[in-house]
């Protein structure tokens, strides 16, 4: 029976029997037998309710009908608890039958919230902390846990691209740093900056620590906020659960880009050429120089007098050249023959976005099991997530295995572990702000078909259509054999906890991560494009990394009468990464492209490159920290935190930093004079001040370094094919670098009103970052380094209000819960470096849109103020002198009134930082049905729709696709409301070379993120099926978006915070329809 002590016993099919057996064991404690039933507000039996005898660990769980039976002393108090319901205490009072009814409570004041190194009752918290229920964590069929925070936590901005597996940018309370503003994630006590491998179903609780009072216990790394996750565990209560969750759905790519059809395009090309006095001869649109005609063929290989073959356009049916080309059709480079294609015009027009996308499946499955006995409990879960992207051949497939367990060999000792293993395949397309395949959908002329007559790819090899690449071809080539991006990850910790004396618990935890990633990319040589690659290339790379953390804490809790103390002290050592190594290789032209053959070794020996490196320098951190929480009579609260961190990233003199925080709260409701105010159930005012640090700089910042490598070599011996090694100074050390300090103040109010039907959480906060670690540009005369030294110079201020209101009401049998939040934010850079007032970023195609400047929000858009189009020559003459001015071109505002448009006339046009973000969660419950609706929005931000640069001007890429906006291009007759300037060939200051307000659009939007209809199967069905719980649902994600933004999607992801909000090839958020099922045994 020893085994049983460790593992308990579980028989999912006969849970009742099991409970009875458990009861038999519990019965050793003599006493009376109590039985009864637990129901919800509607009177339905509630399965799975926890019942314990207060002050002991004796307890049980209700069965599928809500019934229970247990042994308890006649004078005991039973505690009934269930997530989402108010905990109910009921004295036994010598009764043998006790039936209770639980009332639902979304904000449970007794709810325990996991915070830094500890957990606290929600009502005792005096700092800025928000939690997310596990139901919300899995509400959307998305792979990443951090996406669940979007719109549900006031003060947090989350931006996610639609690319499967792409990590979101999570920004807690603005942008404190010019470097990374990614929050620190703590998963079961182990810190990480990447939570993309976590199975959302494994998450028990999510807590966002927003101010210093809550987060400064993580001192050094807390400046951008902390998100604390705990994963699911079993219980020492003899219960066993098996949960199976699945959803299956489809991703819809949505409407694409509105481009001119082939004939419209031909007309506009002629219009542009004529407007510029240029000849229309030579364009691929027939022989009539006045009336363009879409030809039958846009590319026919024609043999020249010198024997070579040349793609020739503008060919009409019946031309004998077509037959000749067909006879020589060839797209292979291997046979020594010329590339010869026959490509018909697609007169109906190709919808490139549609061709390169698909309706793609999204599936997720999770099978979890948990249980426990008196001496052990465990949780195990197997998860699978598969999202096929809307763009061809890219997807996320992830397998997760989690095993958490805890053992209690002695009453006062607990030993446990949390372990997650994951494996993921996630081939993706290019960077969001690059000219990736999605960007090509803006640029490919509709007249080009996807394939030529012979079924080979067609593209801009057809003359006259400029240089976009066929995105269907490039995505198709990136198939699973040729585009691998795999990673494996083991993450977790092991710990021991000892209750040494009463109230004192010692804990030691050792955790870490092993991470391995492999990538292979094989790119066959192209033939269909205007600019083709010149080789078949194979790139392979791998990276291996480990990191560890050792945390030791002592926690002491003691009440003296009405005085309650909690003290925590700890020390921690972190090495992140502990080991790090990468290898990459690149080779050309393997003999065969067979995926079973291609390896780097099998590539040509000429041009092969192999590199190994250390992608991440080790960084160590040694810390001590402490915290004292005191409260008097649940009325007055004081909390003091201090942490001292020493980091290897700084020189020996500035190595350590001390980060204090103070918070205080006054629970007014506990005062006697408030007892009469019955409409207030709870009211608490709280405030705090504290400091947090940031060390997100290169760990080598203090060192002056030199680097070698072939780039810094030189072919000094004139060999033509090798370099002699060279060395350059890559960085100058800044030994004086020290901690970036982030001072936050927070004043908050928590109220529960009107008999628990309304909750209000209101917080005013300010965050000042000083001595901000930043690498200012330095004049070239100081030397040019790979890494400019990071110095403590800049500063930034963020101010905001976090408002959350929860309202619950009933209309007949319909129960409604509305949970809304809104977060106004003001961000401003207050200092950069001495004498430096700005730095520019976000340059695309020679146009620079972003200026990060003192007095402005981060990532502000900077350029000329376009006031209209020049009407006519008289308007040009009457306006300030502007280079390239002509009718139909952009007219800029002469801001300084000097009569000439110069760079001094540029203005701050707007900012990518929203004035506020908001979310609304509506839950409507009627009998077995419930409807969830979740809205998310941003207001007041701007977007640079850079995609307009490519296809709203003929001259940007002459001959490439034109947007349907150009149907409303400027003309003398159609001037005032023109969408685009005059169609023409000139590219100058007044046309398409300057950043200006014409590119900028409002970025506000309101999106229905989720609508979900759930059906909870009734008890009698559950009984028949022998299951505890069964729920089915249908859901639609991103059903609609209300926005004035004309690009594909207003949610613009950016890899860095200093170039936010520029849309180049943004992967749109997609609509997903899915069906789901949860079964619990």
């Amino acid at each position, binding site marked *: 029976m020893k085994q049983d002590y460790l593992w308990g016993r579980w028989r999912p099919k006969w849970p009742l029997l099991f409970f009875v057996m458990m009861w038999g064991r519990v019965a050793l404690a003599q006493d009376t037998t109590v039985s009864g039933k637990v129901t919800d507000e509607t009177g339905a039996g509630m399965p799975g309710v926890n019942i314990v005898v207060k002050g002991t660990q004796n307890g049980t769980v209700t069965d599928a009908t809500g019934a229970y039976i247990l042994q308890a002393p006649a004078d005991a108090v039973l505690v009934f608890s269930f997530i989402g319901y108010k905990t109910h205490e009921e004295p036994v009072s010598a009764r043998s039958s006790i039936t209770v009814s639980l009332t639902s409570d979304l904000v449970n004041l007794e709810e325990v919230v996991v915070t830094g190194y500890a957990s606290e009752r929600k009502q005792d918290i005096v700092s800025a902390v928000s939690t997310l229920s596990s139901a919300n964590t899995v509400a959307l069929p998305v792979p990443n846990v951090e996406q669940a925070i979007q719109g549900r936590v006031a003060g947090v901005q989350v931006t996610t691209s639609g690319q499967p597996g792409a990590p979101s940018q999570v920004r807690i309370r603005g942008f404190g740093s010019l470097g990374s503003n990614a929050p620190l994630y703590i998963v079961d006590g182990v810190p990480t900056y990447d939570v993309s491998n976590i199975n959302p179903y494994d998450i028990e609780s999510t807590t966002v620590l927003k101010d210093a009072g809550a987060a400064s216990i993580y001192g050094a790394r807390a400046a951008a906020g902390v998100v604390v996750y705990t994963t699911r565990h079993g219980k020492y209560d003899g219960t066993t659960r098996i949960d199976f969750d699945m959803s299956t759905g489809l991703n819809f790519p949505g409407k694409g880009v509105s481009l001119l059809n082939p004939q419209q395009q031909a007309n506009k090309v002629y219009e542009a050429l004529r407007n510029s006095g240029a000849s229309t001869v030579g364009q691929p649109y027939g022989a009539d120089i006045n009336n363009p005609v879409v030809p039958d063929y846009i590319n026919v290989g024609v043999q020249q007098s010198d024997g070579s073959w*040349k793609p020739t356009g503008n060919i009409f049916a019946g031309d004998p050249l077509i037959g000749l080309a067909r006879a020589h059709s060839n797209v292979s480079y291997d046979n020594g023959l010329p590339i010869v294609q026959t490509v018909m015009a697609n007169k109906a027009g190709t919808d490139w976005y549609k061709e390169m996308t698909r309706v793609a499946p999204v599936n997720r499955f999770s099978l979890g099991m948990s249980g426990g006995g008196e001496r052990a409990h465990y949780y195990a879960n197997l998860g699978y997530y598969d999202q096929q992207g809307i763009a061809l051949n890219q997807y996320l497939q992830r397998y997760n295995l989690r095993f958490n367990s805890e053992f209690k060999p002695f009453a006062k000792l607990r030993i446990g572990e949390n372990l997650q293993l994951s494996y993921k395949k996630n081939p993706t397309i290019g960077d969001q702000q690059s000219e990736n395949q999605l960007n090509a959908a803006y640029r490919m002329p509709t007249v080009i078909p996807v394939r030529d007559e012979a079924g080979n790819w067609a593209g801009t090899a057809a003359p006259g259509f*400029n240089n976009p690449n066929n995105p269907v071809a490039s995505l198709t080539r990136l198939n699973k054999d040729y585009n691998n991006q795999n990673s494996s990850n083991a993450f977790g910790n092991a710990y021991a906890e000892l209750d040494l004396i009463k109230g004192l618990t010692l804990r030691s935890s050792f955790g870490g991560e092993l991470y391995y990633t492999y990538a292979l990319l094989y790119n066959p040589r192209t033939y269909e494009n205007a600019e083709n690659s010149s080789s078949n290339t194979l790139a392979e790379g791998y990276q291996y990394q480990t990191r560890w953390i050792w945390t030791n804490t002592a926690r002491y809790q003691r009440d003296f009468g009405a005085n309650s103390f909690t003290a925590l002290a700890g020390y921690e050592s972190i090495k992140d990464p502990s080991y790090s190594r990468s290898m990459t290789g690149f080779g050309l032209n393997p003999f065969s492209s067979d995926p079973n053959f291609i390896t780097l070794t099998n590539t040509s020996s000429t*041009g092969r*490159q192999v590199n190994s490196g250390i992608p991440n320098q080790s960084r160590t951190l040694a810390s001590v920290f402490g915290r004292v929480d005191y409260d008097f009579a649940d009325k007055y609260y004081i909390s003091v935190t201090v942490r001292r961190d020493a980091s290897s990233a700084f020189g020996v003199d500035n190595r350590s930093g001390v980060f204090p925080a103070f918070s205080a709260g006054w629970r007014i409701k506990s005062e006697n004079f408030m007892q009469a105010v019955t409409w207030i159930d709870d009211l608490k005012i709280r405030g705090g001040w504290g400091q947090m640090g940031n060390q997100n700089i290169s*760990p080598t910042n203090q060192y002056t370094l*030199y680097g070698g490598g072939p780039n810094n070599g030189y*072919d000094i011996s004139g060999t033509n094919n090798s370099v002699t090694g060279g060395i350059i100074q890559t960085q100058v050390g800044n030994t004086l670098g020290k901690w970036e300090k982030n001072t936050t103040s927070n004043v908050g109010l928590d109220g529960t009103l009107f008999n628990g039907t309304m909750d209000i959480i209101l917080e005013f906060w300010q965050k000042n970052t000083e001595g901000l670690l930043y690498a200012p540009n330095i004049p070239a005369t100081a030397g040019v380094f790979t890494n400019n030294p990071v110095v403590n110079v800049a500063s930034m201020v963020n101010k905001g209000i976090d408002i959350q209101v929860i309202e619950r009401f009933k209309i007949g049998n319909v129960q409604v819960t509305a949970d809304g939040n809104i977060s106004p934010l003001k961000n401003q850079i207050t200092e950069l470096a001495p004498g*430096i007032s700005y730095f520019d970023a976000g340059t695309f195609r020679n146009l620079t849109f972003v200026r990060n400047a003192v007095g402005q929000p981060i990532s502000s858009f900077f350029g000329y103020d376009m006031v209209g189009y020049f009407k006519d020559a008289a308007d040009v003459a009457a306006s300030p002198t502007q280079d390239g001015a002509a009718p139909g071109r952009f007219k800029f505002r002469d801001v300084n009134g000097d009569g000439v448009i110069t760079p001094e006339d540029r203005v701050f046009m707007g900012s990518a930082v929203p004035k506020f973000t908001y979310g609304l969660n509506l839950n409507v419950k009627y009998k077995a049905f419930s409807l969830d609706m979740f809205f998310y929005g941003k207001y007041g931000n701007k977007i640079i729709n850079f995609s307009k640069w490519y296809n709203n001007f003929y001259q940007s*890429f002459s001959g490439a696709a034109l947007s349907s906006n150009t149907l409303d291009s400027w003309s003398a007759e159609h001037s005032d409301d023109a969408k685009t300037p005059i169609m023409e060939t000139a*590219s100058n200051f007044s046309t398409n070379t300057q950043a200006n307000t014409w590119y900028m659009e409002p970025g506000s939007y309101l999106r229905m993120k989720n609508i979900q209809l759930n059906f909870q199967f009734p008890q009698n069905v559950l009984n028949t099926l022998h299951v505890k719980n069964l729920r089915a649902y249908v859901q639609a994600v991103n059903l609609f978006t209300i926005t004035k933004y004309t690009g594909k999607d207003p949610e613009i992801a950016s890899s860095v915070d200093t170039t936010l909000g520029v849309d180049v090839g943004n992967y749109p958020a997609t609509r997903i329809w899915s069906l789901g099922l949860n079964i619990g045994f």
Partner: protein
Amino acid sequence: MKKLSNIIKNNRQVAVAMVVLIAFACSDKFLEQPPKGSLSDSQVANAQGVEQVLIGAYSALRGSQRVPGSPGDWAQGFSNWVYGSVVGHESFKGSNSGDQSDINSLAAFTATATNSYLNSQWVSMYDGVGRANQVLKLLARVTDGSIADADVKRITAEARFLRGLYHFEAKIMWNMVPYVDETIDYSEKNYNLSNTEDIWPKILADFEYAYTNLPGTAPNIGRANKWAAGAMVGKTHLYMKNFAAALPVLTDVIQNGTNAGGVKYALSDNFRETFDAGNDNSSESVFAVQSSVNDGSGAAHANPDLVLNYPYLSSLPVNCCGFNQPSLDLANSYRTDALGLPLLDGTYNDAGKVLADEQWLTPTTPSSITPDAGNLDPRIDWTLGRTGVPFFDWGIYSGPPWVRQLSDGGPYMVKKYTFPKDQVGTYTDNSSWTAGYSAVNQYIIRFADVILMAAEAEVEAGSLTNALMYVNMIRARVSDPDTWVKISDDPTKNDWQAYADPTVASHNAGKYVIGLYPAFPNKDYARRAVHFERKLELAMEGHRFFDLVRWGETTTDNPNGNPVNLQAAINHNGVYVNLARGVTFQKGKNEYFPVPQNQIDLTQGSIKQNSSTGGGGN
């Protein structure tokens, strides 16, 4: 706390463990994480380190790639295809007008100080300066005598040569630029220099030091030697208009100079082969950017600044990206008279004399044209692609299909510094995004340049006879019919084979008529002849704009009265090509480029804008 101390007393093992852990957590050793994958200061301050840092200083000759916000490799380096050729209107930007549009305003003399190209080039050059100074700084720290005195001298001289060279490029771009020597260091915070001083004397001092101290033969062919330094001394004197001072040193280089391998300077026999990777570091190479391919650097040293400058037809071995198209004026300049002499009076742009290819640009573009049948200097067909002439072994150049947008770039394509198809993969690097990465060296100075500089100095301060001799040396080399472009008459051999093998029946691809000048009747004629010869011989090598500014031959009322000048070229180009239309060079304003606003701001104003440009209009 009493209890806690009891506990510790009673649990010695726990106490010991805690002490050990605390000690570990606070250990300084744990917090010292040595940098990995890099070298420290002390590891390079030795003989070997200094030599490698010197190589690093040479490495910047390709144009450093580490400029934030840079438009790309094509904005920086020594090829000067933008700043010398396009701005000098010997070529058009090419491609289509919106592509790399910052070049448009440079060529239209309307660029502002915020033009991204200018900052790229500035940073690239001062990166080179900084690397050269780094050599000197480290050298000073090696005091253990481990570097032989002769090597100290050589290394110093090479570093100073490079420092001079990078400054030289900055000087001719912006005129008033700061001079950075080895006393300037980031850690000294003394880098906010001013640009109020004319730095020619300092540049000259660097070159003169190198000229005095470098050996004639260097350990490696790619290094600067005495004679490369001498040529730069001469060139600097020319820019300073010290013709008398330039003459002896240029004469010394011509008479006694050898390349770094010890081979006496001489013109190559064959004009084309001067631009063939297989003929790098020939007797004609005075100083060149050493280019290499397939060297493990991912084409970093394979002329990354020139990769856009190839024809556009998709069936070609390189089909990107149609930039740097020779201008109409340049092509017409190759017209020769019955004696085979160029039309120094500028009439080559007149109706009846222009090349047949201009017909492509008439309002009713013909579907085909008859290749030009008039007299031409044979160098034209190694310099640019024109209709009816084989483009090496790439096929017969046929005008419009080879260019990206006729109305934006005209009908020609640069051929100098491109390569024949049969060199693909051997002298080219296919490991990057485009196929135009090549191994051919880029000349900073070649011997023909030295000869023409000497001719210039002779005209201004020496003898017209010598000048005549020098110019005719250049012309004589291209008078050999075996070196002209051929079209095969043998159906079994292609044109390229016909060129390579004189025994194959063939005819010339054009009507090549080239002759030597019989005499220079006067100084004015000689000056025009020498200037014109530079235009023809050094076309598309990035010299044109800087030569024109140096000579003052920018506007039609130029001091030399030369009808061949920048504005005249622009006027003709603008008849057909819209990017040149209406472009006016303003004397006193457009000679130099605006200093990048970014650098003015970063030095908190200690660097001033060129007063002449006022920050707007180069």
